[in-house]
């Protein structure tokens, strides 16, 4: 059952006092039917609303930055100003912050992550789109997987296989007796849990935010009825929906920033021994 279908069937005729329970939105609002499908090799691709939105986000993103940086001027104006602001934010605020001057090489990588994630999050409050692409778990997993497959080989390449794991599992400055306890914890936290937390942090935030907005939107509609409490509740829910939407704008940017900053920190740790 698709998200639209659930909201529609639960929504229109279902109000307070009409003998209808509150149709609380659940996990089903994150499920979308395939618009069309095609098969490449043995893998069937289901193109859903989310995939189409992701495609649009990629096109808009590329369009904007290719336009903004088409002929960069020494004295910037218009779109170049905005684009430069973004570039300098990533370079100075994330890359150099985490890795120093060496971070300049990774600016395109971090830049792509930040803006792709930010825009994917932002789609959640764009009318008619109204689903954060990153609240579909596979998308943050894909991003975290790319980061994981970047920093681990990078660390092995830069430090060498032995030193890379030795630095990670046996950090210096710790009593030798502690290594028996520390090494497994470090291994689990860095190699196994890290990509999971990296993706879940982004996913869970966007998922929860969207669910909250959806709940209050449904409540606004559900509470419209011939009763004072119902009307008051509806107005209050509407106000909360607006407030949450504003809050969500903040969270969207913040989560994109956190994901990108962590990426920079992981890469930085791979370039040099952490301690």
């Amino acid at each position, binding site marked *: 059952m698709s998200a639209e279908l659930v909201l529609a069937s639960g929504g229109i005729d279902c109000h307070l006092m009409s003998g209808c329970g509150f149709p609380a939105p659940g996990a089903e609002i994150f499920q979308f039917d395939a618009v069309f499908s095609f098969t490449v090799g043995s893998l069937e691709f289901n193109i859903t609303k989310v995939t189409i939105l992701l495609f649009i986000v990629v096109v808009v993103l*590329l369009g904007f930055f290719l336009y903004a940086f088409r002929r960069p001027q020494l004295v910037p104006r218009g779109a170049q100003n905005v684009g430069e602001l973004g*570039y300098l934010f990533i370079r100075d605020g994330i890359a150099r912050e985490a890795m120093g001057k060496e971070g*300049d090489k990774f600016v395109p990588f971090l830049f792509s992550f930040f803006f792709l994630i930010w825009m994917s999050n932002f789609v959640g409050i764009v009318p008619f789109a109204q689903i954060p692409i990153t609240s579909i778990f596979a998308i943050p997993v894909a991003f975290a997987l790319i980061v994981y497959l970047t920093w681990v080989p990078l660390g092995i390449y830069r430090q060498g296989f032995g030193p890379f794991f030795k630095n990670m599992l046996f950090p210096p400055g710790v009593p030798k007796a502690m290594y028996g306890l520390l090494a497994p914890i470090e291994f689990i936290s860095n190699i196994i849990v890290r990509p999971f937390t990296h993706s879940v942090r982004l996913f869970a935030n966007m998922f929860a935010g969207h669910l909250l907005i959806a709940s209050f939107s449904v409540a606004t509609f559900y509470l419209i009825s011939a009763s004072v409490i119902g009307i008051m509740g509806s107005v209050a829910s509407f106000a909360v929906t607006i407030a949450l939407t504003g809050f969500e704008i903040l969270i969207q940017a913040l989560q994109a920033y956190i994901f990108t900053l962590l990426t920079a920190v992981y890469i930085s740790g791979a370039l040099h021994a952490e301690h």
Partner: protein
Amino acid sequence: MMNVFAAVSTAITASGGEGGEEMPSVLAVPVDELVIGIIAFLVVFGVLGKLALPKIKATLEERTHTIEGGIKRAEEAQAEAQRSLDEYKILLAQGREEASAIRTQAQADRTAIIEEARAEARVAAAQVTAAAEAQMAAERAQATASLTRQVGEMAVGLAGKVIGQALTDDARVRATVDDFLADLEQQAAR
């Protein structure tokens, strides 16, 4: 890693799916969506990293260089201006000194020239005076001589007439006349 997710998602679906409705868990990671997500990032990374970001990186570096170059040029220009000012001041001081020397020299020259002119004038005046005096003396002498002769002749004539005899060319007469004239001259000189 995908196996981990799959296991987790299966577990959640199994425990939560009491409605019997076949609803995939929100933690499910369909391979097609995963692949699409990876492709989306790679496209963004590839296009921006190849086409857009190198340009802006170059521009930002160029801007930094321009600004640094501008500052350097300004510093050079300032140093140059300072050097010119110093040079100018030195030249001005030299000029002043020279002017003062020239003025002093001119003053001295002027005095000398005036003195010379004055001396020349004095000499010339003296010459003129001397010439005039000489001429006057000559004329007086001539006049005196002529007068003396005429007076002599007149006196002799007169005396001849008085005495009634010609005393011409007589030595005594001449001596008498000369005495007379010498008396006259003495009187005139007195």
